[in-house]
């Protein structure tokens, strides 16, 4: 059995990002071998000029189309929903860096009321409630979701670039990895 082809099969039926542990479990191999199979698959796809690529997204791996083929796809499919507004992106950025965070804390940074934007983002499932802050009024805490990672094609929150303004560090962001991850040659 060709492991790379097996990974291709798994990714094409999964329909959602598969964590490396899931891939290894399906292939009955260890995660290192699974990563190797992913890398092989990516190489093979490139060699045969496939329109597909392996992407490391939302803490898993998934097959996607190549960005240069957006036009034919666009003629076939109509995309639902437009882009996010600037207000939504600003709010998302603040939540992503300062999570978990309450609406008043977001408003303190933006200087405007944010309740409506936060509600919309929660409806789009880009953020979700993460309990309540044990302060007066017990305000709801918000954090970004897996869908947030998927919406921006991020593999994890560590991909967010360092903010140039560093005052209060974002505590929940994963600490910078000292040893760089093995580059799988994936997007």
């Amino acid at each position: 059995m060709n492991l790379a082809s097996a990974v291709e099969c798994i990714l094409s039926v999964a329909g959602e990002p598969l964590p490396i542990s899931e891939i290894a479990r399906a292939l009955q191999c260890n995660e290192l071998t699974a990563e190797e199979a992913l890398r092989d698959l990516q190489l093979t796809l490139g060699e045969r000029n496939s329109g597909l690529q392996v992407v490391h997204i939302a803490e898993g791996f998934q097959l996607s189309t190549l960005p240069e083929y957006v036009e034919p796809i666009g003629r076939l499919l109509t995309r639902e929903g437009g882009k996010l507004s600037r207000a939504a992106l600003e709010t998302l950025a603040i939540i992503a860096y300062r999570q978990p965070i309450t609406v008043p804390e977001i408003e303190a940074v933006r200087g405007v009321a944010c309740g409506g934007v936060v509600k919309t983002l929660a409806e789009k499932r880009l953020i979700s409630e993460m309990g309540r802050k044990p302060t007066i009024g017990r305000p709801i805490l918000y954090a970004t979701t897996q869908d947030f990672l998927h919406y921006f094609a991020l593999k994890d929150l560590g991909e967010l670039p360092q903010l140039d303004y560093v005052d209060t560090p974002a505590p929940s962001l994963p600490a910078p990895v000292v040893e760089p991850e093995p580059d799988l040659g994936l997007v």
Partner: protein
Amino acid sequence: MRFLTTNPPQFRLPVFEGPLDLLLHLIRENRIDIYDIPIADITQQYLDYVALLESLDLAVAGEYIVMAATLVEIKARMLLPQAPPAEGEEEEMDPRAELVQKLLEYQSFQGSVDTLRGWEEYRRRIFFRGALENPDDYLLPLPAGGIDPRELMAALAQVLSSVSDDDTAVTAVVPRRRVSLRMKMVEVLRKVRAKPEGLAFSGLFSDPPYYTYDIVLTFLALLELIRQHQIDATQKQPGDDILLRPKEAEAA
């Protein structure tokens, strides 16, 4: 006014995301050092913009007015002569410092907006396939802890909505004995009179099951009886049970 005279107001109205956004725009437009804002000029320009919005009959959000007040306050504090710092005392903080911190913080997040926008652009150019539609044969195992309550709620809502779409849905009319307020008043009065030494308020709702309609009606009946001076309600101290007694004068 220096900037305004060299740069007359333009009637291009960019949409601002709030007072901080407007201030940053003015700072960029005038090529000002953010750490050394000429507060008088900026305040003037800011107020001009707000006045412009008002003259165009645009609703000016309260946040803009609050910021205007803050700017004027900073301007006033900067006009006050500063006493030289006494021995061992720290120099008084620049009145602009807090605003500058807020602006810098906000600006850094504005910077990440472009990053997010770029990622969004890329993401919108790639497509993913959905899962194969043969759920009867195989199901993807659910990752442990991968389902949050919100998803369960959504699933339940979906099930419920598909149920209601069904024409053959079971319908039944459950009759409810509607008691009128008058009937309830009679009932409450009887209960209270049965215990001349006093009936605890909670005693009115002694027999479950409780129905909202019934509880509300009982309460209304009680209020009406008190208003009509048929019942006397006393409470020793807040939190205690309320004691209900029939009023002798009326009962006689």
